């Protein structure tokens, strides 16, 4: 499913809103998550999942082609953990 298919589905399920209005809202929804991540915040959406930045320590790695040791600096990686309700929904039966 793509963004436009999601917008389509939400439009169908929301009588009273046009496609253009739904599009603006869906955009704003994802943008608010991006904004929070940019502020370094964790996002908790009950029943769906959490987004948070995990700290990775610096490490030494090897260039697999040359065998040369390279330093990998510390970094943050974005991690999504699905929520309980979603986990149960996709694992039922």
């Amino acid at each position, binding site marked *: *499913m*793509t*963004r436009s298919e*999601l917008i389509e*589905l*939400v439009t169908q*399920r*929301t009588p009273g*809103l046009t496609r253009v209005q*739904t599009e*603006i*809202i*869906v955009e*704003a*929804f*994802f*943008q*608010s*998550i*991006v*904004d*929070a*991540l*940019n502020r370094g*915040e*964790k*996002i*908790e*959406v*009950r*029943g*769906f*999942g959490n*987004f948070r*930045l995990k700290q990775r320590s610096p490490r030494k790695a090897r260039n697999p082609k040359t065998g040369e040791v390279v330093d990998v600096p510390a*970094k*943050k*990686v*974005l*991690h*999504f953990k*699905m929520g309980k*309700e*979603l*986990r149960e*929904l*996709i*694992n039922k039966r």
Partner: protein
Amino acid sequence: MTKADIINSLFENVGLPKKESEEIIETILDAMKKTFSEGESIKISGFGTFNVRKKRSRRGRNPKTGEDIEITPRTVVTFKPSNHLKANVE
């Protein structure tokens, strides 16, 4: 940030009344959850991709007791941020 803060931000940025914001966020989340439950992935350009993956059964260990256990087969949703989002936050 929680769902209530997302509702507030829709109110502030788009001017959508809070009750309507709340309803439409639930609709968006429900539509996404339903898609996952059908085994379908969701790709939001500029944001990232949610993939639905089937995990096979594997051996695991209870980290507390050290006991060997079987981890049952399960379905998980993973998220891979888009390059754009990665460049911004990571």
